[in-house]
């Protein structure tokens, strides 16, 4: 069967899955995973996930929240990526910019309003009291962002792994998002509610397989890099560098399953801040179901 993983092949969220498939962890746990689906945009990914044979996916938390708010019947079953370790703000190599403070009076490109890059830059700059001193521009996808940066349309842009590791000779990091915002959950695992009820064991198996993948990755980052490179069809040097880069940031990036409610709240607040969702009560209890997590990963 296919599983849905957001940014499969161009983000680091898929690494545990790649390892779990390669090492047979999913099979051991009792699901035969053969491939992964991804697509443009969080909403589409959630929709694709809900339409799949196993309606499970590791998707952007923001998309999951939006979906729940609009009445999609899904349940969040595990934490995914719970830090911003793969998220940087970069300038051209020869740029004088060295830190977030240098951005005052400069132009920074984020992808689009109400997006995660909008939110992260807003929070980070607000924390540093720089928000009104920096001119923020929308630059769209990474391709056009890159072009804008190269052509001098903006002075710094958002950047994510593993693209950063590929382009690092041309770029320099101005600041790392994780340094400004230590806790923020990016992705979570979601399941269609009726499926969870009918096949809890399948979900449990997926979570278990993924967890083993995470464990292996932390224990053998280099081998993990090779595996990821095979699945992503990339140069192993790049994936290895990316994994190293992520691990070097303190804090957990790939959660073995445990939820980081603080990071989830940060995301929720951030979304409200950039007006991506209407402010209002949102109770995690109603949408999170920890019953499929291994005992050591549950909150209580």
């Amino acid at each position, binding site marked *: 069967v296919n599983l849905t993983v957001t940014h499969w092949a161009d983000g680091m969220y898929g690494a545990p899955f790649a390892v779990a498939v390669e090492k047979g962890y999913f099979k051991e746990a009792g699901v035969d995973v053969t491939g992964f689906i991804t697509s443009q945009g969080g909403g*589409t990914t959630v929709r694709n996930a809900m339409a799949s044979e196993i309606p499970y996916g590791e998707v952007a938390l923001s998309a999951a929240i*939006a*979906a729940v708010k609009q009445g999609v019947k899904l349940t969040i079953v595990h934490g995914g990526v719970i830090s911003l370790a793969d998220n940087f703000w970069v300038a051209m190599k020869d740029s004088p910019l060295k830190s977030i403070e240098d951005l005052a009076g400069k132009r920074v490109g984020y992808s689009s309003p109400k997006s995660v890059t909008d939110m992260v830059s807003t929070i980070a700059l607000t924390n540093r009291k720089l928000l009104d001193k920096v001119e923020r521009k*929308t*630059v769209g*996808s990474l*391709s*056009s962002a890159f072009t804008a940066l190269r*052509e001098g349309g903006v002075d710094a842009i958002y950047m994510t792994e593993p693209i950063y590791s590929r382009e690092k000779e041309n770029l320099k990091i101005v600041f790392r998002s994780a340094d400004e915002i230590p806790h923020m959950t990016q992705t979570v695992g979601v399941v269609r509610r009726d499926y969870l009820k009918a096949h809890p064991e399948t979900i449990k198996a997926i979570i278990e397989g993924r967890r083993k993948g995470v464990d292996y990755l932390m224990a053998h980052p280099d081998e993990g890099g090779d595996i990821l490179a095979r699945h992503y069809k990339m140069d192993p040097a790049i994936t290895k560098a990316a994994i190293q880069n992520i691990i070097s940031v303190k804090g957990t990036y790939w959660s073995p399953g445990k939820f980081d409610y603080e990071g989830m709240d940060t995301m929720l607040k951030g979304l409200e801040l950039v007006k991506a969702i209407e402010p209002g009560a949102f109770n995690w209890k109603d949408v999170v179901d920890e019953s499929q997590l291994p005992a050591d990963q549950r909150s209580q």
Partner: protein
Amino acid sequence: MTNVMDGDNRQSSSIAVSMAYRRHRVVLWRLLLVVSVIALLELASRLSWIDPVSFLPPSAMAASAWHILVDGMYREDMLLTLSSAGTAVVMAVAGGFLLGLLLFRFGRLRRVLDPLLLSYYAVPIFVLYPMLIVIFGLNRWPLIVLGFLFAIVAMAVNTLNGLERVPAVLLRTSKVLHLGPLEEVWLIKLPASLPFIFTGIKLTIVYSFIAVIGGEFLLSGAGLGYQIAFAYNNFDNQTMYGLMFLLLLFVGVINLLLHSAEQRLYQRRVLKENA
């Protein structure tokens, strides 16, 4: 002639009714079609035959559209999109017509370019976006140019089709009357190929909108397309369908206006029978 036209009163009034029907039947049928489709969709979504997460009842779409309009929260985005698409349409219509003329005039140019003209639609045109940014900078122009590029060929091809269908005897007449090349275009070729030109304009409008909105959808941070994309990704069906409804309405109205202008021009040329 009078004895034919003056039937008894009943007959003439029934004739009047049938004449009125004839005149307005297109509008009537169109209305009927639209209303019944909408009713069907309304029913289907109200009765939850269609998943409410995927689809809204049309009445809710209309309500949301109305709300958006009154609220004015997307006014700027709408103006942005309309002005970009409008600029693209104007450029593409003019450019496409000229291109069509050139191709018609210079057979060799046409033979050389012909195979490329249509195949370029096969390449997802937004891969050009980064290049356009390099050329035009980080503003609306890359999108406008995207709309222009996407639409111009449809216009050119239709112009070409139309020009080819101008009866040879009319072109010969224009030679006899010593029309200059410009006059010939304006007074003979353009009116003679008008039906095709109209089709070209209609497609140009559609393609410009598709490209501009699609571009916003994927690449930009503002405009109707972006807002639709955002609402879509956020599962905000109210806003998404509301905006789509407005868009549909807008393009629909433009098309209807064009269509009726076309009809008015046609009437003279086409046999209209009262049988």
